[in-house]
């Protein structure tokens, strides 16, 4: 297991290299002189010169890339002149909100999706199956940010059950926190549940058709034991795979949903930075979110190894 883990960690290095390179190149894509935009409206000529020197905009691209990597290794993601603080500080401060939103949505989507998928597989080719699959398909066709707005109109404006936006920190008021996170998390979960439901169903159908399932049923085991102990456990690998993919979708979904519900996460920070054209923040936010996703993928691979010993030894 330790060998597997270290191999997996090593393979993340080239990925992180490309991620940081792409993030670096984004600044280079911006047309025109960006110094003035990064400095903000009330910058002096000295400020401009200082920023130009810091970002090295007068130096060749490869020198700037080297400087970027040198800074990265020291944990320095740059400086936001518009917010007047280091990028890493601004992003890391906002990260918990985004992670808890994505995490909540992930738990809900996985629970509901697996339930729906198992139900559809067990009641294969019945109305239950078709109903579950139509629900799943509609769920994954709905744009999540729009669904968020519909939820606000429905439960916030018309029924008044939930706040229409804003955030209460968990430490201040747990109930207020739950109320402010409920709609955004449900929105994200409902639109991603379908993907998990479809995968669960097809994986379960594959497994339930196997001989050992018939044997287990034939020797008189309880149906629920067969479905969960024998069936689900062997169907977990493809389900874990989609859950991993979903996590990436949920992370970027959280970015957009935060804007809809005015939650102070990394997403809202990035979107605000896009409107102010504060590029260091955009780069930092993008880089850290991608790193979180890379880390999640490693976790998913560890889960594989846990569910399937062959994975541990084969690679």
């Amino acid at each position, binding site marked *: 297991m330790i060998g597997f883990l270290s191999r997996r960690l090593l393979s993340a290095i*080239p*990925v*992180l290299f*490309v*991620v940081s*390179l*792409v993030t670096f190149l*984004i600044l280079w*894509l*911006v*047309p025109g002189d960006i110094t003035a935009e990064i400095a903000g409206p009330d910058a002096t000529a000295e400020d401009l010169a200082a920023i130009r020197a810091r970002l090295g905009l007068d130096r060749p691209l490869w020198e700037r890339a080297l400087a970027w990597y040198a800074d990265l290794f020291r944990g320095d993601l740059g400086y936001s002149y518009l917010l007047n603080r280091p990028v890493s500080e601004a992003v890391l401060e906002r990260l918990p909100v985004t992670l808890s939103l994505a995490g909540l949505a992930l738990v809900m989507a996985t629970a509901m999706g697996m339930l729906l998928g198992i139900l559809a597989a067990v009641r294969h080719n019945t109305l239950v199956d078709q109903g579950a699959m139509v629900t799943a*398909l*509609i769920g*994954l*066709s*709905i*744009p999540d*940010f*729009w*669904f968020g*707005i*519909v939820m*606000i*109109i429905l439960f*916030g*404006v018309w029924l008044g059950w939930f706040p*229409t936006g804003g955030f209460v920190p968990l430490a201040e008021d747990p109930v207020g926190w739950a109320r402010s996170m409920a709609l955004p998390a449900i929105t994200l979960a409902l639109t991603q549940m379908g*993907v998990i*439901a*479809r*995968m*669960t*169903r*097809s994986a379960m159908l594959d497994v339930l058709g196997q001989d050992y399932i018939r044997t287990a049923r034939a020797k008189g085991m309880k149906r629920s034991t067969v479905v969960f102990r024998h069936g689900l456990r062997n169907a977990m690998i493809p389900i874990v795979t*989609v859950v991993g*993919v*979903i*996590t*990436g*979708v*949920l*992370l*970027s*979904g959280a*970015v*957009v949903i935060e*804007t*809809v519900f005015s939650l102070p996460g990394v997403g809202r920070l*990035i*979107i605000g930075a*896009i*409107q102010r054209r504060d590029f260091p923040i*955009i*780069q930092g936010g*993008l880089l850290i*979110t*991608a790193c979180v*996703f*890379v880390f999640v*993928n490693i976790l998913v691979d560890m889960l594989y190894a846990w569910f399937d010993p062959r994975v541990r030894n084969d690679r």
Partner: protein
Amino acid sequence: MTADAGPAAAPPSLAREVARARRRRRQGFLKRLFGHPSFLIGFMILAAFTMTALLAEWLAPYGPTRINYRAILAPPSAEHWLGTDGFGRDILSRVIHGTQVSLRIGIYVVVLTGIMGTVLGTLASYVRWLDALIMRGLDGLMAFPGVLLAIALAAALGPSETNAMIALTVAFTPRTARVVRASVLVVQEMQYIEAARAVGAGHGRIVFRYILANALSPLIVQLTFVFAVSIIAEAILSFLGVGPPPPAPSLGNIIADGRSYVQEAWWIAVFPGIVIAVAVLGLNLMGDGLRDVLDPRQRLGRDGH
């Protein structure tokens, strides 16, 4: 390349037989495709969406940017079926015109992603020494969650329709290239490829005529999903203000307008979203149908975007 002359040099009667057999197979394929309920429903939805976009000039009751100060935030009525926005612009007309942007972006992104994905995927599997290089690069791009990379790219390039297409193509190419690579890897080990090489077919002929022709099915299925995701992603970019800029309507920026009016005018945000959801549902149904007919082994849930 003498081998290339092979089939053409066959007696004319045989060539006719081959052509007839091909036509029959194609007809059988279309019959199975349109006999698949998911594909048929999806196809009809997409056809309706396409016709709406093409005939927008004639279908829209008002000009999409025509301002009417006497009908500001008017709820749905006989005059304005879907109501009006904060400038008194007719939502139905804006939605109808907005479908053009979605369709244009969808088509361009599908074509560009298809080309880029095929080139990169084929190079990676056919040219051994390029494989690691290309795949590590694509892995890196895929490490950015979902449409986040597209959002950042579009923000850097500036808000425009062309830049949105570029950003989405960069974001969706890696997964598509992986799909192409996986299917080319299987096909290029087939015996008929070895046979083609043995009779002296060149790389170009082998790749285009034999490998790609037989490895296309997963790509086609993947591209219908790219189309679906592009329509949602265009809406997200426009909603965040990095898509095609206003006042020209796109389904996303109408929803963005509506976000500020959730208290007093729900109809602005709700209707364009329904249109997006229906169009995406149609494409997903088409993709499911195509997968069932083209590639029965792969009946799995849709990959994320």
